[in-house]
């Protein structure tokens, strides 16, 4: 583990002030929440910083209600809370292992660093491939997954919470020394395995809020992985819907584990909902979702298989809608 200075602020204000101070001093830093993602990466000397600000003592980030989920809420608490939406509960309960969920946090899971088997390796290993785009160690190295396209990192986003929260219309709240802002979680992510999202330097996630209507949505989450525990999702499909009187009133589908960001498939879901006709629509939409994602070869399973499985996962996530018809 490379050496770093650990800062332990006791409040959000203190944390932000500290961040501002470090920034002004031109010092790079990382936030650390549960540490289950950041510290293994540090151990491998992956983009480590000389300063780390821990949010472990910031009480106000641990608020958990049905509509407000603090960034420092432990994943396991989210799973065990009665207030948690069943879809979020299902997705959170599938993350890693119970040991990791006891440490890992909601904010950390949403901001999980992207993964790639050319990147998540020890330093000597990466030296032996002459480094890569995501951690080039000053060499300007090329991407090893898709060489000769030295602009975009294609490392894969392999976290489970985001697609579930996106389907429920979640809003993400950010804070930085410069102020606070919020946006739909679906708009938070931005295609690139290195920058990943709209967080700016020194900015952090404070909490997630769910709209009122989320309580009226049902949902399901399906995840592909080799082992039932610990493994990151090789593909994940979340679906949420509102049904009344056998009619489909609302439908959202989001995917994860397939590209460098999770995706909410708004248009696909909306247009399928309009002429929803039970099983055939389940099959049809599943096929459309499959076509809408483009995994690359940088995780355990080959991309062709992951893509194929998107259809199966979507079909299973939507299976409760097989006897439902369109609203109009």
């Amino acid at each position, binding site marked *: 583990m490379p*050496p770093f200075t650990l800062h332990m602020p006791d409040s959000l204000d203190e944390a932000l002030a500290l961040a501002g101070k470090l920034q002004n001093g031109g010092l790079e830093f990382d936030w650390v929440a549960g540490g289950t993602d950041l510290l293994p990466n540090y151990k491998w000397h992956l983009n480590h910083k000389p300063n780390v600000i821990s949010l472990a003592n910031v009480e106000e980030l641990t608020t958990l209600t049905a509509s407000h989920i603090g960034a420092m809420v432990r994943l396991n608490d989210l799973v065990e809370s009665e207030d948690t939406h069943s879809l979020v509960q299902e997705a959170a309960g599938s993350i890693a*292992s119970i040991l990791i969920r006891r440490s890992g946090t909601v904010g950390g899971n949403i901001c999980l660093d992207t993964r790639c*088997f*050319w990147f*998540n*390796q*020890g330093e*000597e*290993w990466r*030296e*032996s*491939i002459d480094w890569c785009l995501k951690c080039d160690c000053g060499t300007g190295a090329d991407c*090893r997954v898709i060489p000769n396209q030295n602009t975009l990192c294609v490392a894969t986003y392999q976290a489970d919470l985001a697609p579930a929260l996106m389907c429920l219309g979640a809003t993400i709240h950010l804070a930085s020394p410069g102020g606070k802002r919020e946006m739909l979680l679906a708009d938070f992510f931005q295609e690139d395995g290195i920058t990943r999202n709209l967080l700016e330097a020194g900015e952090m996630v404070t909490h997630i809020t769910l709209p009122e209507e989320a309580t009226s949505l049902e949902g399901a989450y399906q995840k*592909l992985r*080799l*082992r*039932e*525990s*610990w*493994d990151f999702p090789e593909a994940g499909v979340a679906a949420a819907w509102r049904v009344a009187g056998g009619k489909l009133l609302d439908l959202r589908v989001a995917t994860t584990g397939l590209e460098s960001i999770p995706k909410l498939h708004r248009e696909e879901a909306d247009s399928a909902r309009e002429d929803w006709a039970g099983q055939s629509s389940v099959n049809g939409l599943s096929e459309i979702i499959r076509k809408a994602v483009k995994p690359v070869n940088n995780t*355990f*399973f*080959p991309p*062709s*298989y992951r893509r*194929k*499985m998107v259809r*199966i996962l979507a079909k299973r996530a939507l299976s409760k809608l097989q006897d439902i018809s369109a609203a109009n």
Partner: protein
Amino acid sequence: MADKKKDMVGYTQQPGKLPFARPGSGGKDTFSRLQDKELIPESQGGERKQQWGPHKHDELVSSTAIGKRTPLIDGRWKVTGQAQYGDDVRMNGELIGKILRSPHHHALVKSVDTSKAEALAGVVAVATGIDATRKFGVLPVTKDEHAMAVEKVRHVGDLVACVAAEDEATAMHALQLIEVEYEILDSIHDIKQGLEDSESPIHDRGKYHIGESNIQKRVFQEFGDVAGIDNNAVANSKSKWKFGGVNHGFTEPHAVAANWDPSGRLTLYTPQQVPHYLHRALADVLEIPMHQINVYRTFVGGGFGGKSDPFPHEMCAAILARKSGRPVRITFDREEVFWVNRGRHPSLIEMNLHADDEGRLCGIETDALIDGGAFASFGHVTTYYNGVLHTAPYEIGAFHYTGARVWTNKPASGAMRGHGAVNSRCAVEVGVDEIAEKLEVDPITFRLANLLPPHSATITGFRVTSIGMRECLERVRAACNWENRFRKLPLGHGIGIGCGFFISGSGLPIHWDPNKFPHATVHLKIDMDGGVTVHTGAAEIGQGSDTVVAQSVAEVLGLPLDMIRIRSKESDTSPVDLGSYSSRVTFMNANAAITAAMKIRDELLTATAEITGANKKHLVIGDRRIFDKLNPAVGVSYLEALHKAQEERGALIASGAYRTPPMGRMHKGAAAGLAPAYSFSAYAAEVKVDPETGQTRVLKVWAAHDCGKALNPLAVEGQIIGSCHMGMGQVLSEEMKYGRSGHLMNPNLLDYKIPTVHEMPEVVPIIVESNDPEGPFGAKEAGEGPLLPILPAVCNAVYDAIGVRVNELPITPDRIEKRIATLCKELGIDDPLDLPSPRLTHSDLQSTLETRAEEHAERDLARRLNEAREEYHNGALFGLDPTIAGDEQDSRWEVAVLPTDDYMASPRLAGSAWKHTERRHRGDGN
């Protein structure tokens, strides 16, 4: 008064003083326990049934320890955190060693400049290849490793230099300051490419080099009527298998500490399975005599074959300690564990099985090309084992084997639990399943009708003694409700069977010894306190070798286990034991321990006879009491007998040794696979396969293993369950994956996918005891053999579930899904959920086989119980005279160990290794 005086023989004081108190029986309990008649064999008047006859050790049974479920005696050390593993060793003034490794697959090392590293404050010593230029390797015939690169590096992660510094950070910093100039060479990653000539072969074996290729070892063997296979066969199973390489995945990474003490002696602390061969290699590489080295085996956090080579990092620690004059400690991270590897070989195996119209296996033709990675390691043996270890348990009409091991620029493969037998066994058992299907017979019946009888010789001339194969199959069949489930379960749900056969100790030691050194030696020392100190070199690696030797001694001497203390860690005090490999320890070391204990026992009986005047022949040992079996009231306590025996000489000491009997035939390679006994096993696995995703889940395993006699049933069950887990990893998910650039892509335990507790099915262990005549109390191995059957059992269950024949491991969901898709296409089915589930209607052959199986069951029982049985050689089932080896009575059964020109006209894959000429035959003077 006179009577009392007589009672106290040996314990009277000087006249006028009070007598000594009479010693108790020894041990914590005041009173001796009665013998447990259920553990005493029938042959000794006890109640333990001996369906397979008496055993030579029956008279030693005291019902104290053997056959009892015994927690391992070092278990508390481990669970309380007091066990010192490799990385727990701490010494005053120690330095931290770190290793600089190659970033290239294959390169000449032009120069290594260590001056900047040496100048760094806190760096005490730096070493490179020139500090130890002698080659070493676990097998004396294939020494091809150096402590650090001497002229070139052969894989990414190969050792180049090492540093000892005051702390880890300084050592790591120093590594970055070492400047190495490489000249990169072409590297080889494809196993097939290893067969071809190369401009710069990875190794140069001088006179013995095979062409200009990277072939490290090749084998050609033909036994039986190979030429007749095509005529005789009515059903064939031909498959081309691809096996990924797997790593042992033990918990404890390699760690070593070396201390060159003030007396000028080296002590090397290391979690080694085979301390003795390391001892030899250290002496050789460091160029010091063996007696100057003490190899100290720490607790071993899992070995499975992965800690059985002498390793370069062990040399590095010793070299750095010598250079720095201070203790040096090196601990690996997981990536380094993968780089040193020695796991199971990635393999391409072509397996052709043939059956004739009577449902006999008239031929097995195997071609195995195995990927050795950068070094030879145990590969010479592995190459043989891939063939010869599937010549049983079935009686076969012909056996053709071509095997080759090639060097590639990958971390070296080596020995791993089930060494060399696992992959080809999987292919054989899946082939048998397919053959049975083609013959439309039940695969268990087919097996039962084709088993070699006990006390027979295989087609390659291995002497097989006890065989519990039939009982394994029968008990598994009953336990899993086979009759009502096989080929009768719905789509996606299946059950399958697989068998195993493995050596119980290798017949020959690795270092060929004309002086007939024993394989195992045990020393016992007992002083007046009554406790027994056992000195043994057998390496306790978690398998329970300390416990089994303690149990053996305790049983013979009638002592509770807490009176036995094992000293097995240091070569300074332990007699030589060849090590914990090839499942040899229980068989050999317990036999040596029994021999030693019998000597002590005899002395105790003599002393008892002297004290009591009883006839020594009638004396028996119970719990800390020696008594006349005809008149149990006559006897003395253990301590009384011991003290009598100690008169005028002090502590009793005894030595016992074990050496294998002469065995086997004379052809080239005849020694490979020889063992004093063999274990057998049969497993049934129940699986669910998701037809849409291809994901396989093992629901339950019924695992019958013939270990001869379970000395410790708890440990045997642990081995069976652990083997299921490890084998399941290889069949379901574990694989060392190499990327397009030749790099190992998953050298960590997140991406190298060992099954978790979620994947682990319920395992029902079934212990079969075939009472091996030469095994200690009848015991054979239980550490490796139990791994073999789980792979084919799962593969065959997958077929039963979904109709897909597996020929590539691991069966990750993507691979199974692909095959399901192909099957759907072939059958014109759109949705895999509409696939038909495999079904079976028996042909007429079924009843023929059932009859034969019944006849053979009677034959087997008769052979077991008849000490004066005639010889039985493989071939009798095919009409040959059973008392003569096939090749000695039928010219068609001639043995061949070199390919003919005919064969070379169209050799199989590994067989093509014989295209090359060995240099010595060219007379080119090298």
